């Protein structure tokens, strides 16, 4: 056991060193990007628009984030397996591993729930519980809109939070109703996000159990995975299998649709408020442009008709 303890100690040191190296790489790359000047800025702008992460900055960020996650997942699994494999009794070995997996649920779920720092907007506003995994609920740009309290002309309204269910009265009743609708939609989005996060937590938990079931026989027989990459690939395989089932289930489909639909309505309501502000300054609105586009279509169709 002594040598195994040493191995665990070596492992921890190596893991810490790898994490420190990665942090150093982050720093070095960030400095290099900062020094690239206008080209770097252009790449950043492209990333901010949610387009292809093809600039060095966005590319580097995305790549390093995946490496970090890889290290987090495979490192934790390996550490647990290493500890379990050190036990002499095969049954105990397998049980320790499967029990330990349950303890990883929170950590693994958080890898998918928290958007990685610097993630491009298109990925950061995905389905809750997915972090970098943006799903159909991932309507890009939504998260970039100012918060309700920051909407032009609205931040100063008193008692906004308490106005959630009050009847709208007086000269500003139309604005009050718009705000109430925004608040209701915001609450609906939060609720939908919680629902979907719950689904994702469940998926991660089941995936860990599935991994335990797949690996327990190997641990019992003393033939555990030989590398971090192998155990990581097994994790992905188990997780995809569980996800493929869950994502077809009514609860997941409903939760995902509810979030997407709520976000769509919230976005439209936000735009309507912005347009009200635009009107006060006689600025064009989306509604006006839409009207013009419709008229153009009708004119083109009429013109095509006269040409036969």
């Amino acid at each position: 056991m002594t040598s195994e303890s040493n191995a665990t100690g070596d492992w921890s040191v190596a893991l810490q060193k790898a994490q420190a190296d990665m942090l150093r790489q982050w720093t070095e790359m960030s400095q290099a990007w900062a020094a690239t000047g206008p080209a770097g800025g252009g790449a950043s702008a492209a990333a901010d628009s949610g387009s292809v992460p093809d600039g060095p900055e966005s590319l580097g960020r995305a790549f390093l984030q995946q490496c970090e996650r890889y290290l987090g997942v495979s490192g934790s699994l390996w550490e647990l397996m290493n500890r379990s494999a050190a036990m002499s009794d095969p049954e105990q070995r397998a049980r320790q591993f499967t029990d330990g997996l349950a303890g990883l649920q929170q950590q693994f779920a958080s890898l998918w729930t928290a958007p990685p720092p610097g993630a491009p907007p298109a990925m950061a506003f995905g389905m809750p519980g997915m972090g970098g995994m943006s799903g159909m609920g991932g309507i890009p740009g939504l998260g970039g809109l100012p918060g309700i309290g920051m909407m032009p002309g609205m931040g100063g309204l008193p008692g906004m939070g308490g106005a959630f269910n009050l009847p709208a009265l007086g000269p500003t009743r139309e604005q009050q109703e718009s705000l109430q609708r925004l608040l209701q939609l915001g609450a609906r989005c939060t609720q939908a996000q919680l629902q979907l996060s719950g689904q994702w937590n469940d998926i991660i938990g089941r995936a860990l159990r599935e991994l335990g079931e797949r690996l327990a026989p190997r641990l019992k027989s003393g033939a555990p995975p030989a590398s971090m990459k192998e155990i990581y690939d097994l994790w992905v395989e188990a997780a995809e299998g569980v996800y493929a089932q869950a994502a077809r289930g009514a609860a997941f489909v409903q939760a995902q649709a509810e979030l997407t639909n709520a976000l769509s309505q919230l976005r439209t309501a936000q735009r309507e408020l912005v347009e009200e502000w635009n009107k006060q300054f006689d600025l064009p609105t989306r509604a006006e442009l839409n009207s013009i586009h419709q008229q153009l279509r009708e004119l083109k169709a009429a013109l095509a008709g006269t040409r036969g």
Partner: protein
Amino acid sequence: MPGPAEPSTPLRELGELPGKITATFQSLQAASTVSFGCSEKDAVYSEDKLTLYHYRPIAPSANLPPVLIVYALVNRPYMMDLQPDRSLIRRLLELGLDLYLIDWGYPDGGDRFTDLNDYINGYLHRCLGVVLREHRLESTTVLGVCQGGTFSLCYAALHPERVRNLITMVTPVDFQTSDNLLSKWVQSIDVDALVAAHGIVPGEVLNAAYVSLMPFRLLQQKYVNLLDGGSDQAQIDNFMRMEKWIFDSPGQAGAAFAQFARWFFQENRLLKGTLEIGGRRVDLQRLTQPLLNIYAKQDHLVPPAASTALERLVGSRDYLALGLDVGHIGMYVSGRSQRELPQAIAYWLQRR
């Protein structure tokens, strides 16, 4: 006593990780300017955002009618001509085929009311007209890819006299097969609300849906796998071309998107025979021309059953379904597809 696996292996992995990350990152940086699209072509027609291209010949003509390739709206067509050794178009040109391709372009806010009638009876119709006029033909071959295949089916059913042969590739026809995860998700989506919120539905929304079909693989593992081949610049270049294509997704004209999602995914009208485009019913029984239906056996986006449903719907007696043991994207770029598919298409055309 069975102990832990060889401790030096993970320790070595950890020790090597920073070096691998640096090497891979440098290769990724070097690959960030890779080019794509390899066959020479000329723009012969354009309208709004659309461009019709004619590929320059690179081999003696096979003396076959020209082929109009109708690509999907949801991705860029350069996937069919990605690089010299991964180009379905190049392989077909080498076999002497005369190829045209519709590039739908990138819709913007002015296209939000463009609908399926505009795409099918408008743009597609006029592009085919250009090809037919150029070659003084009454009809020719149409090759529809993915969603473009669905459009081609609709078009051929509405204008059968202008389509001499029809080839569909990874084309959905039954949008509600039990194995279609994307379809399951779409059923409960309020499409009108989505379109009202965006006008032009961003490509990122669609991409998010696609990668969410296999999130652990497509959003993480495929990048981690790069670490093992990070110093192979050619491999990284290939990866970056693919990455570029996957996320280079045009926004979708809102009206067309809403119609496609509702009529095809949610109501499965093409299969049920209840689809109307431009006020005319799309009756697949009117498809009596030779029909080659190519599908991918490992397709997770358009499951085989979604494509092969076509057989029982069309009126053609000359129908052939050809399944390749590849995935959706592999149909364009896999080695197997490069070897087998162009010859199969040319052979099929030569016998008609």
